[in-house]
């Protein structure tokens, strides 16, 4: 059997596939988010130290995870795009960047909302907060560089290189807790050691993380479809598509 691995690597074939996948991921995101929020707010027990305020963890931790994961995924797409000179990979990297920046912002805002009742201050210059802030700067730099170069292919490759350079920073973010130990508590979940939190809390957090994943995929696919249309507007398949939708509009 001969599988064509690169069948969906061209915008023309990927555009309809992405269109079919979006509803699935969007519905999964909605269902998981409802389930996750129900568990986090109705089922999970109150924390004996932090009271009800800890419940922001169900948004904060998954958002922080996603902010880092999206950067790595983005850098991977960028690297593939640079190595194989693939248009679609670079478009995926470009589509992921705004979502990553938004999750970084959410992690920062929820973190400071959580910090106020727990530590008594909105912001501390702690290693993990600071590196999350640096991550936001990295996302903004990537978006700004791509926006300021007019030629899209050149913008893709310059952005890809920047993403790869910045990816060196992501491990530093993750290990920064061990490097500069300060006010911030250690990771809530340790690989290898048993988690210190109740099973329902963990379940709620993991389901919320999955919901964020599905949301990210759905939104990135929507955005990449727009980028494809914009970049390939002079290609035949886009013209056919617009003719089709125009005739449907008339009927």
């Amino acid at each position, binding site marked *: 059997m001969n599988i064509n691995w690169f069948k969906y690597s061209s915008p023309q074939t990927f555009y309809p596939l992405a269109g079919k996948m979006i509803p699935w991921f969007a519905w999964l995101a909605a269902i998981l988010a409802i389930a996750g929020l129900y568990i986090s707010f109705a089922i999970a027990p109150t924390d004996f130290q932090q009271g009800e305020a800890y419940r922001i963890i169900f948004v904060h931790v998954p958002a922080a995870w996603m902010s880092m994961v999206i950067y790595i995924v983005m850098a991977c797409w960028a690297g593939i795009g640079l190595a194989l000179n693939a248009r679609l990979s670079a478009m995926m990297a470009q589509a992921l960047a705004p979502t990553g920046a938004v999750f970084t912002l959410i992690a920062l805002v929820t973190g400071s909302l959580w910090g106020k009742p727990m530590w008594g201050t909105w912001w501390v210059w702690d290693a993990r907060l600071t590196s999350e802030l640096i991550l936001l*700067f990295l996302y903004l730099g990537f978006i700004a560089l791509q926006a300021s170069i007019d030629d899209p292919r050149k913008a893709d490759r*310059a952005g890809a290189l920047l993403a790869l*350079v910045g990816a060196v920073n992501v491990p530093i973010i993750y290990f920064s807790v061990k490097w500069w130990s300060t006010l911030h508590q250690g990771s809530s979940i340790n690989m290898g050691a048993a988690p210190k939190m109740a099973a329902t809390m963990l379940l709620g957090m993991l389901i919320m993380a999955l919901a964020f994943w599905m949301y990210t995929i759905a939104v990135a696919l929507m955005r990449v479809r727009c980028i494809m249309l914009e970049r390939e507007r002079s290609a035949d398949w886009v013209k056919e598509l617009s003719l089709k939708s125009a005739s449907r509009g008339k009927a």
Partner: protein
Amino acid sequence: MNAWLTVLKRDLLLAFRRRSDVATTLFFFLIVSSLFPLGIGPEPAVLSSIAPGVLWVAALLAGMISLTRLFAADFADGSLEQMLLAPQSLALLVTAKTLAHWLVCGLPVVLLAPLIGLQYALPNNALLVLVFSLLLGTPALSLIGAIGAALTLGVRGSGLLVALLVLPLYIPVLIFGAGAVAASQHGMSAQAHLSLLAACSLLALVLAPLATAAALRISVE
């Protein structure tokens, strides 16, 4: 190696012919670090406690404002294209250009820093660590900055963009550099910070020229 020396000599000669460019960087460093006492107040205790951070940030900014000049002139007159076409490895030529940039913009700042440290009432041992930390750390700044300069070559608003791209990547160097001076101020050994700083510079020396060369090939096509 011959080509490497030629590029280095050429860049140094060009910088020497345009001495005002060098002076601009140095005066920028001087002025920025003189503004802080005026804004904060002249108490020596306060000044010496903020000195490591302020001097390091000023050195970092001084190095950054000169970055856009690193490749711009060569790009404008076409000699950069010749370097891209040269049989020698582009990454190697980039290290020569970066070294020239450091000698012209980094080293004077390192030499001037203890003088400003005195104005900030830094004790003698901290002054020594300040010079050492700048000596170990500023090469990393030039090397990482070269990536940003290459990426923003010929882009509109490149001066501001290069700041946005490069400053986040400077942060580890800033933390270890200022940390070294602060540690010695508090009577602790600065060795750990200095080692990490040297590690940053060495890592940058290995990886940054390759990234810069790739960025130049993207920008000049």
